[in-house]
Structure formats: C-alpha cells, structure tokens
C-alpha cells in the first residue's frame, strides 16, 4: 500500500509496534525449528541470532550480526515479528537488517561493539530499534538517538536475574524522582543525566519512558519473568533461559503464561512445577566479560 510516511509518522508507527508486543515474551532462537517452538509456546516475537548469549560467552572472540540467510529462514518459519541484533555503532549491519525487512533491530551489547564511542543514529532508519539501558540516562539517550523501544540490559547469558532487577529498579526509581521535581529543576536534572530536556519533560509529565520498556538479561524461570513484570517491565525478553534448559517448549509456554498473569502466585506455582532442568547459570559477579558495560 505503502503510502509515503513522514519521519515523524515512522517513529510513531515504530513505537506503536512495541505497544502491540506489551504483556508478551520475546525469545532468542537460533534455528527455524526453535522459532517454531517459540511461536507455538506463545512468544510475541523472536530474536534471530546465531548463538544465544550463554554460548557467545563460552565461545569468546568477536560476536557479529547473524548470517542474513539464517535470519530469512526464521522469517519464513513464523508469522510473529522477527527481530535481529546488530553490533553497537555498526551502521552497515543495521542497513543490512533493514534491507532484509526485519521487524525490529536490537542494537545490542550482547554482540562485540563496533564503535566504542558512538551508537547508530537510528533516526536515519525506517525500521525500528530496541536498545539496552541500565538507567534513565542511558534509556533517554537511546530514545534521543531514535530507539523506539527500551529493554534493561541485565547481564545476558548468565541466567542470573540480579542485574536486570537492579536496572529495572533504578530506571523506575529515577522516573519517580523526575516526576517529583519542580519544572524549573528539569534543566539541571537533564544536565546531570546527560539527556535532552524535552525528553525529560515528557517523563516528568507522564511518569513513564516515552517508549515501551521490557526486561532482559538473565531471566530463566516463570517466577523471574513475573518478578520483572511486578517491578514495572511491560514485557520480557528471554535469551539463553529457554533453549539452554531441559524442556524448552514447556518452559517457554510457562513463562508466557506467567507474564500474562504475573500477580497470580497460585498460577505461577503451578506453572513452575516439573519444568525440568533450568539453565545452569553463572553468577553475574563470577564472570569476566561484563556486557552491560558496553554502550553507555
């Protein structure tokens, strides 16, 4: 149909796609078969990547955008949105992902950064971007660069939810602090946070980020997912937690239901029964490669 859309309309449409994903679970998949399992289990989108974060940690070396042919295979396997990761600052990987008609690009600290200073100017793209953040400053800087969805960074590939909790609590706390400010205090707050004052005014007025905010990094169980929702996440990314566990299909379906009913402890208890082995996990403070430090 493609009526021509202005840049402002594109931003709006891209923020709105994230709104449609709310209350859902986005799952990392590495093959069409896994994508199919994820869709059957009720994933609202899949993240196509060659190696899940836990294996990226194990393998070491430079981690890059996935093979476009592999991403296409996953696009053909499912009808839900397909996302893929590019390296922080890698403009051309993002152009390639846009060229293959990806639904959302994750400019992700899980891959090796391509640029130690600059993120991608995401306003130059029609395709939407999600970015990781540890605090309100990082979140609003990414929104200023054109991200239309935010997720906590957590510490990917660990199965340890502690960093995702810390990042979500911090963002929520900082939002409450901004709401409590007088309007004439917003200029100084914008300076402290190193963010545009216009975006801070929006947070001050609405009490939330200007875009949808998901939890990510270390979510491994239905209870982990529900915890993030109770702390204010609008949905959850699950990376290594599903396909590194004993029974991926069952665990994936249980996490989906726990997110839909995140305050119902009786249901979460039932969902947590007999899920098989959870991802073994590494304590986030025992690892050497700290992915959350990438891209500030």
């Amino acid at each position, binding site marked *: 149909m493609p009526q021509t859309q202005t840049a402002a309309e594109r931003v709006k*449409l891209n923020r709105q796609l994230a709104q*449609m994903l709310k*209350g*859902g679970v986005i799952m990392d998949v590495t093959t069409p078969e896994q994508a199919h399992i994820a869709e059957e289990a009720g994933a*609202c989108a899949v993240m196509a990547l060659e190696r899940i974060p836990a294996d990226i940690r194990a393998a070491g070396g430079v981690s890059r955008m996935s093979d476009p042919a592999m991403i296409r295979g996953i696009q053909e396997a499912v*009808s*839900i949105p397909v996302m893929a990761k590019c390296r922080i600052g890698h403009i051309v990987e993002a152009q390639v992902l846009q060229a293959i*008609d990806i639904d959302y690009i994750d400019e992700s600290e899980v891959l090796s950064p391509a640029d130690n200073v600059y993120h991608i100017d995401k306003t130059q793209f029609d395709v939407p971007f999600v970015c990781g953040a540890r605090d309100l400053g990082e979140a609003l800087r990414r929104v200023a660069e054109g991200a239309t969805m935010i997720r906590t960074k957590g510490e990917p590939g660990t199965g340890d939810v502690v960093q995702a909790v810390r990042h979500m609590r911090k963002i929520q706390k900082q939002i409450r602090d901004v709401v409590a400010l007088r309007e004439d205090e917003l200029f100084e707050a914008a300076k402290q946070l190193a963010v545009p004052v216009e975006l801070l005014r929006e947070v001050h007025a609405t009490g939330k980020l200007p875009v949808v905010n998901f939890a990510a990094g270390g979510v491994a169980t239905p209870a982990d997912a529900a915890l993030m929702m109770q702390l204010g996440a609008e949905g959850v990314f699950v990376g290594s937690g599903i396909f590194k566990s004993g029974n991926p299909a069952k665990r994936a379906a249980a996490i989906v239901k726990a997110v839909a009913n995140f305050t*119902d402890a009786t249901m979460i208890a039932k969902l947590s029964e007999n899920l098989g082995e959870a991802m073994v996990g590494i304590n986030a403070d025992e690892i050497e490669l700290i992915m959350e430090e990438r891209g500030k």
Partner: protein
Amino acid sequence: MACAVLAVQGAFIEHEQRLLELGEDCIELRQAADLARPFDRLVLPGGESTVQGKLLEEIGMLEGLRARIEDGMPTLATCAGLILLARDLAAHDDRGTPRLGTMNITVERNAYGRQLGSFHAQAECAGMPDVPMTFIRAPYIAKVEPSVEVLARVDGRIVAAREGSQLAVAFHPELDDDLRMHQLFLQM
C-alpha cells in the same frame, strides 16, 4: 455495567484509557475466573493473535467468550482481535491457532507485510469522514458473507466491518486521538 477488555497480551491499556475518557468502566480479563465478573461489552485488543488465541484456549476463556459473543454481547475487535473473530483465515495461511471464529469473514494476516509495511491513513468509516487509521503489521478482510456490513475500505481493501453486535477493524482506533470508533461501539 462494565466493559471487559481482554488483557492476556497486547495493547489493552490503550483501549481502557479511551473507554474511561468516554465514562465507561472497564474490567480486565486475564483468566477464566474473570469471566464470572459482571460485564456487558467486550473489547478484543491488538497484539499478537497467535499469543492471544493460544492463551484464550489454555487459560480456558475461549468457550465462555464465544458463548457471550454468540448471545449478542457488543464486541469491538481491533487488529489481532479481528483475527480472533474471523471464521476463516486465507487458504494459504495454514497455522491452526485457536480463534473465536464468530464472525463470517475471511482474514488475510500480515496482509501489508512486515513492520516496514505499517502505515497511517485517513478514510471514511461507517459514514464518519476522515477517521485516522493506524495499521501495524495489519490484517485486512479478504472476504465477507452477505450478513456482514462493510464499514470502511482503504485502497480497495476492507478494513472495517460489522455483523450484528460484532464490530471489527484492522486498524487501531485506541492509538489515535479520535474517540469516534469507541463511541460507535458504545452505541451498539
């Protein structure tokens, strides 16, 4: 009485905000027990139809909601909600996700392609001029039975229709600053 908004996944809060602006009370349907609460209207929001259909079945709400709709409860369905109402999916669309299937329409899912095909338009709908229409990875209605009234077309494709007390649209009236589609629903 209240309007029930299906709240298992998707953009349900946006519908609640629109309905509250019009003075309508809302309740959220998250699990089978919620069906016992009093409500006399139903909203099926946007989101992912595969997720919503699966959760409706597994949480045990599919039959209960289907019975209410068949009994004539006024229902507004947007985007994924329209897919849930459709009796048929296009023939090439072989994924057998559970649906309510109460409306005599055939739906083409992801009919405009992926996110780069999402768009905003304005068109007449149910005799109302210039209704803003936001299409996000949207479906359209490929075919309707004679019992279905077509309410809007964009570029020749059917994007809104009514059958009895079911009002289904392929776009997202809850995302735009225009309350006319929700008013139309509340008058049903």
